[in-house]
């Protein structure tokens, strides 16, 4: 324990403090020792996901991932639940867009057993038919709930408009008709053809000894081999003109708006300037410039902010707000005005400095917990940002200039050709009609 008068140094995750090891099957292991409390988080990712599923079976990857947790050769779903709950531990396997996400939380003393159980789920799933039927029913109920959720529907419609037929345009959970179509045979085949340690990673953070953990992972996963996965993706086409949609949901009290564009792949050189621009537009303080106008000045919304997402292919850059139907038109105008301002007016030195200080200064808060540490290390590894990413992060953020922000805003934010989705009660002037006015 640290004595009260000698605060311990707080090392940053870096090539010096992250222990790495690659198994012969291609699985990479990253361990960061953090003995704060006797607990561990494992944050892993294997190449997998909805981008590899056929469009008519949208939701297949997510169902397959969830089925791994529903019984192994030696343990039924019920036994697994009983075992994990008795230890206050959890293992979650989730199918994402590009990955099978692995998340383990447990006390340090149970890690060895958790890794063994996780390995069984990945390597020897049982795929019980009764569990499959239950999972499908639960998934259908969740989708049904989504159809009645204005914010979820606005984002879903936005994604469809933005990406068209590209796999990024589909919801990871699937749709009612596509999920209904999936059979257990589809799941078994998808598992056989796609799940592989090659190119995957496990990030382990907490009160552990790196050497011992690496040895344990080697024991349980070292001799696992999967198929060769073709990870190529169809190119994403940038919309060349306005796209807009409204989802009528008459029973609702307010309308959700999502307006935006394509962003960039996560490892693009313009990523950092784009992060700074997005922070200005809709993140800093209470929702950046957007929050300042829509919420603070106009009092029109409880939430108004922007979000920036990057992946292997270009993600989305969008503003979102929930407002009364009669305020939809005005809110859209404000979002667009603030986009124009970002392109046309150089940001003042003060404002730029503020945003840079926020991005740099908030790092210790993000790294406060095992979960936060594991997620940051996981991103550095997954997107090949380099394990020294945090060491160079401050310089990269500080190097962004006012001109850089205008440049990326000009390149990636076109206030005349944008994608707009609204979901909620119909306004008197529909946003679609409004939006089509050039």
């Amino acid at each position: 324990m640290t004595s009260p008068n000698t605060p311990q140094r707080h090392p940053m995750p870096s090539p010096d403090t992250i222990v790495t090891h690659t198994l012969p099957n291609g699985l990479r292991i990253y361990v960061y020792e953090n003995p704060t409390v006797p607990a561990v988080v494992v944050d892993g990712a294997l190449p997998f996901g909805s981008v590899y599923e056929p469009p008519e079976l949208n939701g297949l990857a997510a169902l397959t991932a969830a089925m791994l947790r529903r019984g192994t050769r030696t343990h039924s779903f019920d036994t697994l639940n009983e075992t994990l709950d008795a230890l206050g531990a959890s293992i979650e396997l989730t199918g994402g867009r590009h990955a099978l996400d692995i998340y383990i939380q447990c006390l340090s003393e149970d890690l060895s057993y958790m890794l063994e159980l996780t390995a069984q789920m990945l390597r020897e799933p049982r795929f019980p038919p009764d569990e499959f039927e239950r999972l499908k029913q639960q998934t259908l109920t969740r989708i049904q709930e989504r159809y009645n959720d204005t914010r979820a529907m606005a984002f879903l419609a936005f994604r469809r408009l933005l990406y068209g037929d590209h796999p990024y345009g589909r919801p990871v959970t699937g749709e009612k008709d596509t999920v209904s179509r999936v059979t257990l045979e589809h799941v078994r085949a998808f598992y056989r053809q796609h799940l592989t340690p090659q190119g995957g990673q496990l990030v382990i953070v907490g009160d552990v000894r790196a050497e011992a953990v690496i040895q344990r992972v080697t024991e349980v996963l070292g001799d696992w081999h999967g198929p060769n996965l073709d990870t190529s993706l169809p190119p994403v086409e940038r919309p060349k003109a306005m796209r807009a949609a409204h989802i009528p949901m008459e029973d609702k009290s307010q309308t959700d708006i999502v307006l935006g564009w394509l962003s960039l792949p996560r490892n693009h050189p313009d990523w950092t300037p784009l992060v700074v621009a997005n922070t200005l537009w809709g993140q800093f303080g209470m929702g950046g410039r957007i929050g300042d106008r829509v919420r603070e000045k106009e009092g029109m919304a409880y939430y108004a902010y922007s979000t920036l997402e990057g992946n292997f292919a270009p993600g989305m850059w969008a503003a979102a707000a929930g407002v009364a139907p009669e305020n939809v038109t005005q809110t859209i105008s404000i979002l667009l005005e603030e986009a124009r301002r970002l392109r046309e007016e150089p940001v003042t030195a003060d404002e730029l400095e503020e945003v840079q200080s926020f991005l740099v200064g908030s790092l210790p808060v993000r790294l406060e917990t095992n979960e936060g540490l594991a997620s940051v290390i996981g991103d550095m590894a997954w997107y090949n940002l380099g394990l020294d990413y945090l060491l160079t992060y401050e310089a990269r953020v500080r190097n962004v200039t006012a001109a850089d922000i205008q440049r990326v805003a000009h390149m990636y934010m076109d206030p005349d050709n944008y994608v707009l989705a609204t979901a909620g009660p119909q306004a008197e002037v529909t946003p679609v009609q409004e939006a089509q006015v050039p």
Partner: protein
Amino acid sequence: MNRKQQSIPTQLAPALAESQTVTRVQLDNGLTVVLREMHTAPVVSVWMWYRVGSRNERPGYTGISHWVEHMLFKGTPKYPPGSYDRLISREGGVFNAMTWLDYTAYFTTLPAAKVDLPLDIEADRMVNCLFAPEEVERERTVILSERSMYENRPTFVLSEEVQSTAIKVHPYHHETIGWPTDLRTISRDDLYNHYRAYYSPNNAVLVVAGAFHTETMLEKVKTYFASIEPRQVPQQPIPAEPPQRGERRVIVRGAGDTAYLQVAFHAVAATHPDFFPMVVLDAVLGGAKSFGGGGASNRSSRLYRALVMSGVAADADCWIGPTIDPYLWWFDLTLNEGQPLEKGEAMLWQEIERLQNEPITPEELTKAIKQVRAHFIYGAESITNQARWLGFAEVVTSPKWLAEYLDRVAAVTREEVQRIAQTYLRRDQATVGWYIPTGQNTSPIVEHNGGKDTP
């Protein structure tokens, strides 16, 4: 199987129970100060708690505590509206505020070297908020919009009906956000008077947790807060809820294809001895939750096994939380398509009756206690959480209550759990709510300009 049956060693319980690591003093003006020095990350978390929430509201003024919370970001002579957001963010901090039944709390977590900023802000806004009329009006529509966001969720609409039916007299009757009519009529002066009445050092608790030296921090805290004058805080009696004389039922109809069931029973105050067996029974039925929110897996719990494993429900949960006065013990089901509400409800009653008729197994008791313990440890890792727990306990229960929490949970017996089920989970003490979906918004109809590029 059962490779793991050893218990989690007691010494792993978070250092919260070690009173020497927590310093607690009361300043002359009545402000309670709690300092938790911990050097796990170069971060501090500052929490300012006020003993005021929807519990202190009267009819016609519901939602006023939450609205005052919003106004505390809206300007003092020293800090103009919106300036905290900038000042805290530019130091890399995160901040927020929350209002609930028993309390209003404000927190900032930021790099340790910047701790003066939140201390100065909290001391200043305890007394100097302006409540400018134009800011009050702008915030009125923001809060109505916040309410609209909740109303868009079927489960909120249902729970508001169930809560206000289960509790008729005590101010826990209404949701913290308040009724829309009150949100339209509360005036600037109403808000200001509420603020002046409850925001004073003798009605507040300041918690600082993180990387600092306790003695230095205490001096710092005194510099900012010691000169604030105490004031008389209203001591109006809070009406007790009269006994319920029979089952109550409500039906809500709304959009969607999904049916929801909520059943609420009367719980006890957090300081009542029956609270701890209730926590254990809640964990057996619906899985343990971390203290102050956040759920564990509940997939080996009785409700999950009975209702989800049978395919009747997509989700089955229950919730009980520590409150000053008796609030509610909630049971929630999300029904799968084609599964009638009657069936879900009947199965829920079956599970409850089973608990009344026979004690839980020794294994279930052990598991529930272990889960509660493990979630304490996970939560203890975060400095922000530790500060939150300490302040919450001061306002809602007592430091002793928090220090003894794990031991009191561990001391619960199977017989006590059975008695709790028999005493509190009675049909004549239940309020049952059904959300019947009308079938609107049942598919993703996207009306758009073809999804194609238009000129």
